[in-house]
């Protein structure tokens, strides 16, 4: 991609509002937003077991979170039990009931739509086991309660950041293709929020949505290029999640549209490297490691019957301008230093009085 | 042979009015080809009725119609014991009506037990649990075998482990178990093709016992001597049309039958011209060939000589072809050919072929030819497949191939004479010719054949015999392993008779089927297959 002239549009004041957003979006945090309410007699949970159930272990993001949860759990003497949802309702249901049977202290369900394991999750809560659902938009029919909390993730924010960048990068006249995941409801709502913001920040920008699903990877390239054929003016392609990145690129490539800039959200190390190598124009990432600690914190608060605060998982926009500032190693990814000072682990420990 | 004489002719004195089986106006069309044209025949109670005809004349088709495997064209009528079966005949209906078939290759599952094979399709489940009562099944089976005579077959052995004629017994037992004595008709479609003389005699002893009760038999076979010796009446099919229906066999000779089948004289079949080969050429020498049963077999075959190997089943004569051609592993021994000496231990088929040994195996479907390929591809295969590593990817010379195939089609009078015909659409007899052509085309120094004329009609048999003898005349050494004494008598200059693994006797000079059989069963002699009863012939 030849984007010398269209570097981050912060400096030239044309789209200043957006520009400022971008500048902040690309900056690392001064400090991670660790909750402030202290948490007492955490040591009472020592020896208990919490379950971490990612929808599938075959996505790197969850591996990072898992490691973080493991580290967090260890600090308070919780035993961690990981169960792979394998993406199928029966396996997820199995994991949940496994946790229920094992009288788990809490269940952290990552990226699992409540609908996918409704019975299991209901049963778990009825058994008094608190459930933390992260990486999902709260399901109105299952509001937060004493036994259920939703850890909001900045899915919408990431989408908005990406669109902001595209808006400024295209000087306000982008035509964007979004390969929107149709696995669950949350992805759609993220894109919807992004779109709402885009229409404000960039009235002339155009948005095309192409629904893709992980069950049909093989079809993503051709559906992508089909859209590109239909609308040759498309200049940006956004693979909503990193797992759709390569099929999306394949689609762009086979439509032989070298001019299109590809971006992706929820990027992990792989996406970062791709950005560095120039095959991506911009990515957003969310602090998966921090999220692990937040999930644990939420779990602890539910276990101890304390109110759960509003968490805020940081996200950061990376382009070729700031990708150089970070270390592209697994350690760096795990420590969370991509997003700001990686001191939140100690903050949490203090918070829990185990430091 | 017991069972031949202990029958009472009185059993068949009263003839029921209705024929056991009556077929009228049966026409069968496959797509465009009409295979049976207005066929009408009848089988009387208690008779053995032979149905003969050339390969592809429609015998099997008729049998398949009677058992409901094929549905004949409209207007066909089939009645059993006076009761008309409505078409299409359903297999179970025809069975209920009393039509039983013993299939070409006996239709047994080798790896299932005798009991399972016999009772297949007739298992009874208990009332509620639908559980098979094995005791009852075994009892029922035992009863059938008792009806069939003294020889007992162990019910829980695998059919694979049975002797050839025991297998036949099982197949027959399955067929007859539904027929109560004195009713029904059993159809044998080339069921006897694989039986050696001894087994054949047992078979007819058994069959005689069955028809003695009044049950009838429709016998499809290519062994005319079976017809002459055992059948009461004969019906001849030619190209799907009846030539003669229900003619008394009494007094007919094989050549009469052959004439009826082919519509022309087949002369010279019986009489053999002695080998007139150049004896100065070096002979093919087999030295101390040893296999599983065969022990230390040594023999020399002059070029132009046809040597026969025979013996009782399991005597080892039918292992020799496969041992010599490296198909099954020999323990030791050598063959000396013009090309040089070949060690048989660890000999691979490839190197055997290279050194001039060609094997025409038994069982063209399994080991001989590939049904899905064309005649050309099959005939030229031994040449095409042994290309050098580099030659493997050089283009085939299709012109030459077609020439070769057309050549042999013409020489062996293969019908239909299309080089591009797909093999499985040809009749067994013609397939057999193609198989022979395939190996003659390799111009071997030693030609080894196993049951070369099994289940082919007299016409095809004549062609094949002449081709083999012609090959010998061209200076090849020929080895024929066979359990068919007629075949041996037609082909061979001398016959080696095996008894458990070694050559017991050697027959030379004018060979007659009679001598051969007598030497095979030194004790027994070649008895007539069956005493024809006066009524059956009337």
């Amino acid at each position: 991609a030849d984007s010398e002239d269209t570097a981050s549009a912060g400096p030239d004041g044309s789209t200043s509002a957006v520009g400022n957003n971008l500048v902040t979006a690309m900056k690392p945090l001064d400090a991670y937003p660790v909750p402030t309410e202290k948490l007492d007699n955490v040591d009472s949970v020592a020896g208990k077991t919490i379950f971490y159930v990612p929808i599938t272990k075959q996505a790197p993001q969850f591996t990072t979170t898992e490691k973080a949860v493991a580290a967090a759990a260890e600090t308070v003497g919780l035993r961690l039990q990981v169960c792979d949802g394998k993406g199928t309702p029966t396996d997820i249901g199995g994991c949940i009931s496994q946790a229920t049977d094992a009288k788990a202290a809490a269940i952290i369900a990552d990226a699992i739509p409540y609908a996918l394991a409704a019975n299991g999750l209901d049963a778990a809560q009825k058994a008094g086991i608190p459930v933390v659902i992260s990486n999902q938009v709260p399901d109105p029919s299952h509001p937060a309660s004493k036994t259920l909390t939703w850890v909001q993730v900045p899915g919408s924010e990431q989408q908005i950041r990406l669109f902001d960048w595209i808006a400024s990068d295209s000087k306000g006249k982008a035509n964007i293709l979004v390969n929107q995941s149709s696995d669950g409801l949350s992805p759609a709502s993220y894109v919807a929020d992004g779109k709402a913001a885009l229409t404000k920040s960039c009235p002339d920008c155009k948005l095309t949505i192409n629904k893709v699903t992980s069950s049909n990877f093989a079809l993503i390239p051709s559906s992508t290029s089909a859209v590109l054929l239909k609308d040759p003016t498309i200049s940006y392609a956004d693979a909503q999640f990193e797992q759709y990145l390569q099929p999306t690129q394949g689609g762009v490539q086979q439509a032989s549209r070298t001019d299109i800039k590809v971006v992706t959200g929820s990027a992990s190390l792989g996406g970062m490297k791709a950005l560095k190598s120039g095959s991506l124009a911009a990515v957003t990432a969310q602090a998966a490691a921090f999220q692990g600690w937040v999930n644990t914190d939420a779990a602890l608060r539910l276990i101890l019957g304390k109110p759960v605060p509003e968490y805020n998982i940081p996200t950061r926009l990376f382009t070729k301008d700031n990708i150089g500032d970070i270390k592209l190693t697994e350690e760096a990814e795990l420590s969370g230093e991509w997003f700001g000072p990686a001191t939140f682990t100690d903050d949490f420990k203090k918070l829990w009085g185990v430091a | 042979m017991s069972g031949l004489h202990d029958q009472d002719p009185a059993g068949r004195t009263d003839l029921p009015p209705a024929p056991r089986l009556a077929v009228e106006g049966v026409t069968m069309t496959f797509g465009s080809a009409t295979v049976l044209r207005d066929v009408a025949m009848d089988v009387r109670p208690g008779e053995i009725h032979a149905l003969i005809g050339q390969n592809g004349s429609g015998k099997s088709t008729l049998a398949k119609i009677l058992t409901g495997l094929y549905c004949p064209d409209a207007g066909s009528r089939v009645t059993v014991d006076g009761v008309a079966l409505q078409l299409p005949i359903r297999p179970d209906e025809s069975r209920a009506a009393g039509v039983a078939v013993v299939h070409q290759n006996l239709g047994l599952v080798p790896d299932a037990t005798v009991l399972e094979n016999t009772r297949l399709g007739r298992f009874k489940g208990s009332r509620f649990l639908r559980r098979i009562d094995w005791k009852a099944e075994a009892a029922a089976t035992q009863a059938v075998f008792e009806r069939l005579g003294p020889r007992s077959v162990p019910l829980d052995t695998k059919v694979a482990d049975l002797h050839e004629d025991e297998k036949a017994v099982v197949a027959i037992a399955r067929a007859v178990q539904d027929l109560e004595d004195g009713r029904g008709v059993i159809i044998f479609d080339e069921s006897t093709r694989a039986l050696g003389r001894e087994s054949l005699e047992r078979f007819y002893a058994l069959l005689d016992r069955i028809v003695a009760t009044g049950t009838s038999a429709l016998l499809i076979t290519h062994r005319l001597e079976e017809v002459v010796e055992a059948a009461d009446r004969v019906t001849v099919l030619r190209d799907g049309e009846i030539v003669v229906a229900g003619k008394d066999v009494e007094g007919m000779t094989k050549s009469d039958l052959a004439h009826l089948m082919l519509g022309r004289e087949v002369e010279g079949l019986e009489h053999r011209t002695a080998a007139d080969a150049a004896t100065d050429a070096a002979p093919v020498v087999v030295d101390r060939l040893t296999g599983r049963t065969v022990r230390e077999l040594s023999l020399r075959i002059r070029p132009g000589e046809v040597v026969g190997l025979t013996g009782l089943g399991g005597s080892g004569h039918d292992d020799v072809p496969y041992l010599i051609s490296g198909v099954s592993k020999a323990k030791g021994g050598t063959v000396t050919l013009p090309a040089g000496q070949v060690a048989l231990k660890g000999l691979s088929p490839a190197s055997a072929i290279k050194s001039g040994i060609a094997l025409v195996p038994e069982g063209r479907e399994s080991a001989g030819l590939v049904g899905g390929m064309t005649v050309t591809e099959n005939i030229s295969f031994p040449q095409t497949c042994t290309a050098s590593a580099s030659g493997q990817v050089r283009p085939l010379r299709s012109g030459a191939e077609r020439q070769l195939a057309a050549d042999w089609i013409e020489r062996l009078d293969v019908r239909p004479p299309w080089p591009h015909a797909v093999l499985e659409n040809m009749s067994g007899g013609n397939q057999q010719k193609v198989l022979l052509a395939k190996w003659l085309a390799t111009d071997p120094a030693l030609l080894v054949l196993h049951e070369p004329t099994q289940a082919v009609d007299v016409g095809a048999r004549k062609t094949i015999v002449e081709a083999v003898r012609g090959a010998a005349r061209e200076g090849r050494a020929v080895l024929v392993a066979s359990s068919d004494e007629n075949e041996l008598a037609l082909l061979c200059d001398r016959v080696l008779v095996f008894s458990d693994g070694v050559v017991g006797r050697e027959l030379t000079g004018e060979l007659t089927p009679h001598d051969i059989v007598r030497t095979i069963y030194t004790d027994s002699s070649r008895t007539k297959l069956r005493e024809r009863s006066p009524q059956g012939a009337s």
Partner: protein
Amino acid sequence: MSEMPTAAGPTTGVTSPPAPASAPAVPVKHSRGGVWFASRFAVIGVWIALAVLFAVLRPDTFMTSGSLKVIFGSQSQAALVFLTAALLCTIVVGEFVDMSVASNFGLAAIMLTTLHVNHGWSVGAAVLASLVLSTAVGAVNGWLVVKVGVNTIVVTLGMGTFLLGIALWVSDLMPVSGLPTDFKDIALQPVAGLPISFFYGLTLMLGFAYVLHFTPLGRNMRFVGESREVSRLAGVRVTRVRIGAFTTAGLIAGVGGVLSAAATGGFDPNVSQSYLLPIFAATFLGTAILQPGRFNPIGTLIAVFFLATGVLGLQLLGATSWVTSVFYGGVLVVAVTISTVLRSRSR
């Protein structure tokens, strides 16, 4: 040329033993030496060994009633049992593996849920409809394969993909849920500490085994699997048996789908394909158990729980997902290879 994947290698040489799929149901003659024994029970031995190993490594977690529940009571095992049973239906009559069972399973689950949730059918009606549907699918498969003579893979693979599409359509690509919670009891009602669906599966497989080994129907099925021609000549209604097998396969898949929809309260149309590999793995691993070289229900059942044990143990040991794949693949190849070698020895 039968399409049935004989569980043992192809029989080449003239002298080589007949395809083992036809090993006699009645005890065979060759002496039951240690090898004979091993070829039947090796995998079960490994299973126990594995369990012991995990118990030693993770006494506090693995040695709990909880993990027993996970291995035997989990919904994914229940689903696998039904799916493998459906697969066996057609395999034993000599058809090639029915690749549509997974999608058929998924379709039934989706149908049930959408009919009830989005179209307001009563649960009973919805259940009935989805069962009828998946049975019909099986019948269509059978009709195409048996009557029309289309290749089995083509029919079932095509049908599978087709049904996946339909499932995605009716559910609008989204996971659906919202079945009444009390309905889940038909699957989750605990009996002797395990959800009832475990006992459904157990009964299904035992019944299947009984039919195969002790009833005329089963005997006929085996023979049809061995040789259609022979069976037909012997008067078995081959066509009926085969179409029946396909139809039953559809029904069983449907029941499985209904049960897991009930258990989870909904279903995700996107995922049914992901069951294919585990089903195959379990079914073929089953050929290394109890009746080596033969597809047999009990062996398959054991295989399902064997694999579940391994996966759970590995998860308790904290293995990542790739280890599970390696385990699945490795076990399948190694176990069947060993049993093949042993069997050829014991002949």
